């Protein structure tokens, strides 16, 4: 199987801008699924609203393109109804952490076996460049023309605090590790979160004078470090990437099955 076999080519061209990082995520996600040998019929992809969420339309799985922020709530219904299916939920930063924040922390708390991919481009792209909860202090956006006074979430710490049993971060520059992390996340039995820093040269980059897509990719190279590296101690502003949490813990649907077995005996 090649990458093309997973695309719904009749729905191309896609709507992502030139230089957008989301295509790199889609490419590596397909490669991860090919490596794992998963059947297309066994994958349900659920997305919300935003640039990131359009990924579901382009991929040849069972795809559910839902409401802004609600992808994980829909996904919870699909997974609990059919636990044997693999559920992948790509989301944007605003989608997952702002309007979908409550669903995000509760999906993590339940440790339901869903792979949540947060394609973090630090901006609301679909609506034209407004600031998101991950935009960052002093950064500019159309709704923060003088620089944002909002402080960002650390998605990794949020996911860990909420109880996700697999938490990782990577970037669109680090494609090999992205693929490997996605493979581990999909195979992980429990709620897995992969934050992928994904460049938006059209809005976030332009508003903040970050250059073109290549410049932004180079920034991911220079501004991120592997977890526990010495550089991070010297420069706390660097962003760590890698797998932060990978724990075996009771998964929600498995617990439900145990409950059913118990009450049927009574």
């Amino acid at each position, binding site marked *: 199987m090649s990458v093309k076999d997973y695309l719904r080519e009749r729905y191309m061209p896609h709507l992502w801008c030139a230089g957008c990082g989301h295509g790199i995520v889609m490419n590596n996600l397909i490669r991860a699924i090919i490596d794992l040998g998963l059947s297309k*019929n066994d994958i349900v992809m659920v997305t919300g609203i935003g640039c990131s969420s359009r990924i579901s339309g382009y991929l040849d799985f069972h795809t559910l393109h839902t*409401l802004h922020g609600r992808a994980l709530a829909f996904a919870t219904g*699909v997974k609990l*109804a059919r636990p044997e299916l693999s559920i992948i939920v790509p989301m944007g930063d605003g989608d997952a952490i702002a309007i979908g924040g*409550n669903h995000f922390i509760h999906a993590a708390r339940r440790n339901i076996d869903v792979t949540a991919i947060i394609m973090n481009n630090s901006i609301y792209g679909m609506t034209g460049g407004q600031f998101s909860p991950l935009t960052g202090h002093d950064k500019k956006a159309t709704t923060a023309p003088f620089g944002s006074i909002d402080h960002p979430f650390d998605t990794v710490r949020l996911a860990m605090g909420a109880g996700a049993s697999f938490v990782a971060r990577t970037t669109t520059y680090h494609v090999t590790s992205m693929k490997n992390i996605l493979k581990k996340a999909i195979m992980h039995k429990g709620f897995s979160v992969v934050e992928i820093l994904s460049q938006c040269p059209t809005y976030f980059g332009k508003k903040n004078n970050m250059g073109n897509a290549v410049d932004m990719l180079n920034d991911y190279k220079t501004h991120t470090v592997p977890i526990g590296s010495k550089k991070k101690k010297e420069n706390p502003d660097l962003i760590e990437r890698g797998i932060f949490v990978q724990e075996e813990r009771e998964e929600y649907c498995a617990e439900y099955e145990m409950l059913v077995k118990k009450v*049927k005996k009574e």
Partner: protein
Amino acid sequence: MNKKKVFVQGNEACVEAALYAGVDFFAGYPITPSTEIAEQLAYRLPKKGGKFIQMEDEISSMCAIIGASLTGLKSMTATSGPGFTLKQEAIGFAIMAEVPCVIVNVQRGGLSTGLPTSVQQGDVMQARWGTHGDHSIIALTASNHQDLFAMTIEAFNLAETYRTPVILLFDAVIGHMRESLIIPEPGELPLVERLKTSVDEKTNYHPYLPREDGRLPMSDFGGVHRYNVTGLMHDMWGFPSTDPRVAYILMHHLYEKIEGHVNEICRMKEFYLEDANCILISYGASARSALHVVQSRRARGERLGLLELQTLWPFPAEAVRQKCERAMYVIVVEMNLGQIMRVVKRAIDDPNKLFLANRIDGELITPQDIKNMLRMIYGKGV
């Protein structure tokens, strides 16, 4: 006669009916006065291998049942007042994406937090127009437990038949009142199961291409047909489209599949309408008081009749017009500021003969409240 007779709350009757209809998935969030439905299903569903989940809010509950329904399970949620408001976004999605599901709204009093344990019928218009954009919807109600049982089953049947969310609008006093209920034998009431596509794996399946009879066979998520489901305007493949022709056809289909079947969908009960010169139109708990007035006045020879609506949406406008044709007076009896009265006004030939007997203070409308309106109409003063 070994039928099972039980003495239960209306909310319990709803649960019994949902199980009879084959509910396999419930997602909900606690809210008065509907909570007993979630509590009972938390107990009953695991025992039959069904799925119960208490979600983090009303929004996610509605989303979860849509997700579950797409895998082929009969799914429902239950809520009241503020929770019904929160569900509106995803109800619109279910209409657009044509996903069968059942939403129970045990109506409580007032707007906002209002009167959580009191009765009002203020959500009639929200059931119709709660979600944004032009659309059509099915909403049913009932005045007693036996009817509530039948209408709950009807809700599941209509949801499957028309691939649409169906709303059950019950009243707090019905939900919490205890009354006897005879549970029908299995097979006694007809059940509509999901219409699944007969298209095989090698043939293209169009999830949004209606058959000649207007119905759309489904394919379960996880099955051999992979397709896209979206809340965007979409073509027969389920793929987003901004083509004006696609949008027009879809808007028309979503509206016509319900409004074009109003006669098949609508249920109503008639009491003494044949020779009635004064017709009460009512529904839900209000219809109990209305029926009491009609029966007591009939005993005195007065020609009163009652039309009890069991389907509020789509509104059976033509049937109501015909039935009210010969009446001198039509009185809508309801517990709101005239939500159904205004719809009746548009339906009947002479709006000048229409009156409203209502109550909006959280108390059940009484026969005396209705009699007071009769005295006014007949010029006897109150």
